[in-house]
């Protein structure tokens, strides 16, 4: 199982811990269905262009690691939000993200995507109010030789309207 190599951090300042409901706590460690992702050249080109980069660079834009893990996670955003009793209308927000590249990204390689929820904490911020801070981590492995290609770690904030 992917291991969280980051400690949860407070969002902003002045956060204090609150009791996490059991149904949310039960999501910690839950694995994503996972799947496969291939960085097709047209997607590599379009993503680089969307990021205002020069799409002709031979290197695949490292942002593609994030796109790959999202593309192969095996569930939709709505399904993921539902794991935490939330919907898009609740306004979940990315808190932090880390991409670690263990090996160069390439087009037309088939990558295996796997990962899980690594932590969940409930906090109350002076400005933010009540929210849950959830961390999840996804791994890319080259499907041909099993090599570890990238790790994408994310934290996401679910406002709880408190």
């Amino acid at each position, binding site marked *: 199982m992917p291991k969280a190599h980051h400690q949860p951090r407070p969002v902003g300042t002045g956060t204090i811990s609150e009791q996490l409901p059991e149904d949310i706590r039960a999501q910690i460690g839950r694995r994503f269905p996972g799947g496969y992702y291939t960085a097709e050249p047209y997607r590599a080109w379009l993503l680089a262009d*969307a990021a*205002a*980069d020069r799409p002709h660079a031979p*290197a695949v*834009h490292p942002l593609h690691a*994030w796109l790959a893990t999202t593309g192969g996670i095996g569930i939709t955003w709505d399904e993921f939000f539902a794991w935490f009793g939330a919907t898009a209308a609740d306004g979940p927000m990315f808190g932090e*993200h880390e*991409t*670690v*590249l263990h090996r160069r990204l390439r087009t037309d390689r088939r990558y295996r995507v796997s990962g899980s929820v690594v932590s969940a904490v409930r906090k109350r911020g002076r400005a933010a109010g009540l929210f849950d801070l959830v961390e999840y981590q996804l791994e890319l492995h080259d499907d041909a030789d099993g090599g570890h290609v990238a790790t994408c770690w994310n934290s996401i904030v679910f406002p709880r309207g408190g």
Partner: protein
Amino acid sequence: MMGHSTVRRDAAGLRVGMEIPPWEVLVSAEKMKTTAALLADPNPIHFDVGAVQALGLGDRPVNQGPLNMGYVMNMLAAFTGSHDCLRRLRVRFLANVLAGDRVRAAGVVTGLTEAPDHGGRWAECDVSLAVVGGRTVLRGTATVALPGAGAGAAESDDHEENKT
């Protein structure tokens, strides 16, 4: 619509505290639409002005967080010579970027260590993205591979070079 910094990077001149040449871009609403399609991101705040207004977020679409991070990656690739030099980037999203904003990625080298595995050095960097004349929207840290002190100057926009 975008400005690429062209930098001659003298490897011998690398030092802790040096500023990474900034990288600027004018954020495009059209590119958010392509990104929504690529990411399969259904959130209408990235393309539908009506939805943005209904949420009280103003009248301009909100850029995707990944694109904000991508701009920082572009700055680092211009500095190192290739996207393939990036080893690690961690960012915290602090605020939204809106269509029509001009944003600037900036950074500073905070550490240099020898990297025998690629015959060069690792640079640790503090990075950020800010709306020009406005607030900082992202902060983070990065680790990038750089050629060794003996490697001499390299042109940052020579993306043909294979550094790994």
